[in-house]
């Protein structure tokens, strides 16, 4: 029991509860997997990225209706200004890309396609850092910090490794991250379903597990 009503903490708790269902990880894993194919030359799955963007809300809602709401109840959080968030993300990515190009030109004295490919994993790690830190601030869920560490360390590691094909580094890095997120998502989903069994309220108003 606590002797205070902390509205900020209440909001964070609600955000965290929604985050525990593993959906974010599974969705991230799928997006990173599809992104990795864009470096393979065939890019067979790349059009699916567009579909993700278009159907993102539908996918999230369908997942939550099936998995999340029957367990913890229905919960809709206040919508953040989607335009502001989108603009913030684009600006963040722009700044990171610019910084990376400046970094490459300072270290190597030139910016070539091969060098850009080499440092894409670090760029991906930094982009993930931005998104996941934002999520950590909103939810207080420390698992985001673990993902940030994995993203940054693996990004730097893959950038420092030498690959015969320059596209192989970013591709393998995205596949690695995709695997990490999908496994994490499955584990979180399993823990979520164990922790919160399906509850139904019958006609008498009695909750049944």
């Amino acid at each position: 029991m606590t002797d205070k009503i902390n509205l900020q903490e209440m909001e964070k708790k609600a955000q965290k509860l929604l985050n525990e269902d593993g959906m974010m990880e599974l969705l991230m894993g799928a997006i990173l997997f599809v992104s990795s194919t864009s470096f393979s030359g065939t890019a067979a799955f790349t059009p699916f990225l567009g579909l993700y963007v278009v159907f993102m809300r539908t996918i999230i809602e369908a997942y939550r209706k099936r998995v999340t709401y029957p367990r913890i109840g229905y919960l809709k959080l206040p919508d953040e200004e989607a335009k502001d968030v989108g603009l913030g993300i684009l600006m963040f990515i722009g700044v990171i890309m610019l910084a990376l190009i400046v970094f490459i030109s300072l270290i190597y004295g030139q910016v070539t396609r091969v060098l850009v490919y080499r440092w894409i994993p670090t760029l991906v790690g930094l982009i993930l850092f931005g998104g996941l830190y934002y999520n950590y601030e909103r939810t207080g869920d420390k698992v985001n910090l673990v993902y940030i560490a994995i993203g940054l360390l693996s990004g730097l590691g893959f950038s420092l490794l030498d690959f015969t094909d320059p596209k192989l580094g970013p591709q393998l890095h995205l596949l690695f991250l995709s695997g990490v997120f999908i496994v994490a998502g499955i584990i979180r989903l399993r823990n979520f379903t164990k922790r919160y069994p399906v509850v139904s309220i019958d006609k008498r108003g009695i909750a049944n597990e």
Partner: protein
Amino acid sequence: MSKPSDELPDVKSIDRLIHEPVRLLIMANLFVVETADFLYLMNQLDLTFGNLSSHMSKLEEAGYINVEKEFQDKKPVTRLSLTESGRAAFSDYRERMKHLFT
């Protein structure tokens, strides 16, 4: 000469409907979300359906909450949200409580 009642703190203006502990927690939980259903509030507040239901009726009568009943996969779902006047009343209550103690 001032009357003794002039020196008393203005506690009478506190909204008694919100002041009740369970209703205060219901209002606080609904204040931080846009919409929530019965199951969510029952879980968060550790209340029974009947208990929550009776408090909900009082808050709905006062026009503080909006109750929407619908069927989802043939199951009844009750979704609750604060009305504009509910939000205003809760914010006002918070301000009054802040100023009440020095």
